[in-house]
């Protein structure tokens, strides 16, 4: 039986970005994440897909503790990550690590690779022989040991991302968030990094929360996929099922727009649904289903009532009025 490692329940994260009104007292709020629930199982790769600004990184940053949720809750192996007002205990910080979207800005340019890898070791594994461990970490990500003397700006984008992965591995975590780890890289390096991540996952029994907007990549790495739209999840399914049988109109729109490189793939895509309409903002979320302004299948009820998640098939849930709302 597989157990759950991370459970996110009705997570909300709002940012106040300014004030309006004559007295400037009415807060203007961005609802970056607005009621998100999902679970990640031990040892799996859970994919989170969604358009730019849909709140994926905000989910990631809240999970590692950079933000406190506005509401809702995240638990890790049954333990609440935001208990009371305390900062997160070291033992928990060690378990959950992140690899950021932009390999360039996530590494301190004034530290060499040795110092970058030393920091988490010093904090989380004070007893261990650091030099030996740094060499081992570099080896894990297939970089030669003399790289420890280099500075980030001397490395290519792919190599920087390898260092970021090594840094995440330094604490011996069980859960790693990968926030678009390859979106800034070319396909050849992407292939190398993805293969590396898959090997590490097998070797250390890691669980991944994998964020990307590349659905073809998602098809090949994730076991289950959730689609986010404007701070909410609209569909969750197993990866293969998801591509075979998409239910939500937004998912169908996404799949139909995937740029592919061959005729065989072209045949797998749903008929092209042209995306039109203005993209609503998380400051001013439309009433009812937040996708109704762009939805080709919109009904009257859609602009009034926000649909709830329903299970349409085992392990396949959708939030849309087309599918038997309770």
């Amino acid at each position: 039986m597989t157990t759950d490692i991370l459970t996110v329940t009705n997570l909300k994260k709002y940012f106040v970005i300014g004030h309006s009104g004559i007295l400037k007292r009415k807060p203007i709020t961005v609802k970056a994440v607005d009621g998100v629930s999902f679970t990640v199982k031990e040892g799996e790769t859970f994919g989170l897909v969604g358009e730019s600004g849909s709140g994926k990184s905000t989910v990631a940053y809240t999970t590692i503790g950079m933000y406190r949720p506005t509401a809702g809750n995240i638990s890790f192996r049954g333990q609440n990550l935001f208990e009371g007002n305390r900062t997160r205990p070291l033992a928990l910080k060690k378990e959950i690590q992140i690899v950021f979207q932009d390999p360039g800005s996530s590494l301190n340019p004034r530290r060499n690779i040795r110092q970058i890898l030393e920091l988490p070791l010093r904090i989380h594994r004070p007893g261990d022989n650091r030099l030996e461990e740094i060499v081992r970490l570099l080896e894990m990500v297939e970089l030669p040991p003399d790289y420890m003397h280099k500075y980030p700006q001397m490395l290519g984008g792919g190599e920087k991302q390898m260092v970021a992965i090594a840094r995440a591995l330094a604490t011996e975590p069980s859960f790693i968030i990968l926030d678009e780890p390859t979106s800034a890289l070319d396909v050849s390096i992407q292939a190398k990094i993805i293969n590396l991540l898959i090997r590490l996952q097998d070797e250390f029994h890691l669980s991944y929360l994998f964020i990307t907007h590349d659905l073809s990549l998602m098809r090949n790495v994730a076991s289950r996929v959730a689609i986010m739209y404007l701070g909410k999840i609209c569909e969750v399914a197993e990866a293969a099922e998801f591509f075979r049988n998409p239910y939500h109109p937004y998912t169908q729109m996404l799949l139909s727009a995937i740029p592919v490189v061959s005729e065989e793939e072209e045949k797998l895509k749903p008929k092209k649904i042209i995306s039109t309409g203005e993209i609503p903002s998380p400051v001013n979320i439309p009433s009812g289903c937040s996708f109704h302004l762009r939805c080709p299948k919109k009904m009257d009820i859609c602009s009034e009532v926000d649909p709830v998640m329903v299970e349409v098939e085992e392990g396949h849930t959708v939030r849309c009025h087309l599918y038997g709302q309770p």
Partner: protein
Amino acid sequence: MNTATLQAQDSAGLSAGTPLLLEIKDLYVHFDVYGGTLKVLDGVNFTVRSGEKVGLVGETGCGKTTTMKAILRILPMPPARIPGGEIYFKGQDILKMGEADLRRVRSEGISMIFQDPTAALNPVFTIGQQLEAVVKYSLEGKKLSRREIRERAIIPLREVALPDPERMLDSYPIQLSGGMRQRVCIAMALVASRELLIADEPGTSLDVTIQDQILRLLHRLVEEKNVSVILITHTLGVVRETTDRVYVMYAGNMVEAADTRELFARPMHPYTRGLMDAVPRLTGGGIAGGIRGRIPDYLDPPPGCRFHPRCDHAMDICRQEKPPFYRLSDNHEVACFLYRDGG
């Protein structure tokens, strides 16, 4: 100079008859750095016709952005140096232009969407301030009220499908998500529409529906305003769906050039094939391992075909001589000795 008088006559003779807008001939770019000279561009040939959408692909560090910066003459000199080559824009060699002509090319002829949106935006000014500056610049002396300028600045933000453009105008770059910043940069390039738009990785962090919307916007620009586009991206699927012709670049050389359909149906160069194999497929089946080895050190690039140390088909001649372009058909050329006796 009148473009119509310039008939296409590049080596490939591809769809001859359409006027050439840009023609790069045998371009070399070197960087003088501590420890020696990086010999990056190694005889690049590249053409764009008017109204044409040309794709440029290749691994990180192969010289795509360097080539584009050479066109706009914005390479930092030093360390950069151009030991040889010509870059004709509407028949005039950009490399020989004086300041005044050059300024005209940059303000009226060519615009560029830069790869790194964080670097292209100034963190201490709001998006509105930066966009309004571009609007003012493009007015060339015409006077507009502040409100009119602001209204003009909002239009391109709408066109790139940014949610509430009003909020965007008053935001600082740090308050936007990565993909939003990128769209702001695209909006800026659209404010002044030119004859040639260079898009260096536009939309890499966008989801496919918005990417699609932006690519359709580029498409419309081409159709309505006859703008030519050079599209640089790591997403090969986007190249397949939006361009007319593609160049594949490796380590400072163009190694293959073909009509887009032809290239994706029949990739010939071992490097192109390696790139195609690394693309994740919607059909599933896992991810190939990528091309073995890495891009060469430009201080001491390999002799002969620069790809030979990574190539599974390398022969003796590959280690000694640089392969010329072999023409496989009217619309397909490849620089590889495997094809010296034709396809």
